[in-house]
């Protein structure tokens, strides 16, 4: 019989931390219940609530919980997500009654003692589960001409702009078109005719751009009866924006610009 040579595994850390310093330790886990609004037009015209319970980590977001449900419990759960890091704006949803991005909402920041409600954003037609038809949203976005219009000669190099001129509309360049603002606006919920905060934010981005020449046309478009004057300054949009854009202020600036040009 020969002695089997046992190889000791490498210790986790080469530096021994005293116990009182704590160190990294294990990430805490907890049980959460997701209460998801389900809708499948091929099965029923009625939407229903469905609960999913799972064990999640303190570093997990609502999107991770939705993934866990889709990958391990119910593959039919349908939701949009793309980059999963708060940039693409695909996964805006109504979490615990507030519009947020599922990929930017940590579970530990929510009340995990109660089920976390997840619904599709309001005011847009639901297609399946958490997916809504974004077409009405993009239609009003397109109407404000969200592109640079310049009537001067085409420059041979980039169009230069001073830092101060750029600062004027910096806030509204942050929009990711997630529709969290427009679908949190009670005026938009009524009939969907109001342009909505997102379209006005994107108009603001060009109206106050010193390189753009179509500001007057955009102001004319937003002077419509469904334009900026339907804003009731309830600040729902500003609170919902995952990028922290001061949306209500941007709408007020567009109102001022229309007034200044008419009077």
């Amino acid at each position, binding site marked *: 019989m020969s002695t089997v040579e046992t190889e000791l595994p490498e210790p986790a850390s080469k530096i021994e931390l005293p116990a009182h310093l704590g160190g990294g330790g294990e990430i805490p886990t907890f049980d959460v219940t997701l209460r998801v609004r389900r809708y499948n037009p091929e099965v029923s015209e009625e939407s229903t609530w469905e609960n999913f319970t799972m064990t999640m980590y303190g570093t997990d977001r609502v999107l991770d919980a939705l993934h866990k449900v889709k990958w391990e419990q119910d593959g039919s759960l349908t939701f949009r997500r793309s980059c999963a890091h708060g940039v693409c704006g695909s996964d805006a949803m109504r979490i615990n009654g507030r519009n947020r991005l599922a990929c930017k909402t940590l579970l530990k920041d929510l009340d995990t003692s109660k089920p976390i409600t997840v619904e599709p954003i309001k005011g847009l037609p639901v*297609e399946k589960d958490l997916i809504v038809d974004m077409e*009405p949203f993009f239609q*009003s976005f397109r109407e404000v001409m969200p592109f640079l219009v310049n009537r001067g000669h085409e420059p041979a190099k980039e169009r230069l702009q001073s830092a101060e001129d750029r600062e004027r509309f910096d806030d509204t360049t942050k929009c990711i078109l997630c529709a969290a603002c427009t679908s949190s606006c009670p005026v938009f919920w009524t009939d969907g005719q109001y342009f909505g905060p997102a379209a006005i934010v994107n108009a603001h981005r060009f109206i106050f751009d010193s390189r753009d020449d179509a500001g007057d046309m955009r102001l004319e478009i937003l*002077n*419509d*009866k*469904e*334009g900026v004057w*339907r804003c009731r300054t309830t600040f729902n949009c500003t609170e919902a924006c995952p990028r922290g854009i001061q949306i209500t202020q941007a709408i007020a600036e567009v109102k001022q610009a229309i*007034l200044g040009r008419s009077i």
Partner: protein
Amino acid sequence: MSTNAIASPRSDSAQSPKYTRSKSSGSSFEMFAWLFMRLSGVILIVLIFGHLFVNLMVGEGIHAIDFGFVAGKWADPFWQVWDLAMLWLAMLHGTNGVRTIINDYAERAGTRLTLKTVLFIASAVIIVLGTLVIFTFDPCPPGAVIDLPSFCTVP
């Protein structure tokens, strides 16, 4: 090969709703309505608190208010203009406020039209009646003999 092998997305299919935004009206009515709400609000603060102060605080205050007090005020063109401005601004301010609430909450075009018709008729009646009273008010109508205030000279 069928050209329609993959079903088109719901938004483009025949049974999906059409998203047609209402045509632009091209008028600046909503802008002036918005501006009017701000300006009339500021003026109304002065008019209403002035009205309350003169009626309830000055002199004997609330105890002086009676038919004769109102008659005396409306004998003065200053208070006629004051009350007329207050009536018109408050009525138009309130009517426009309710109009926007109807626009925000009524979902069907028919409901909107009905509610706004009722609103505009009611406001018009109150404005016309109020204006008429302010300008034609006579505390001692000729021919009347009973229930006249003491300051009227009974013929």
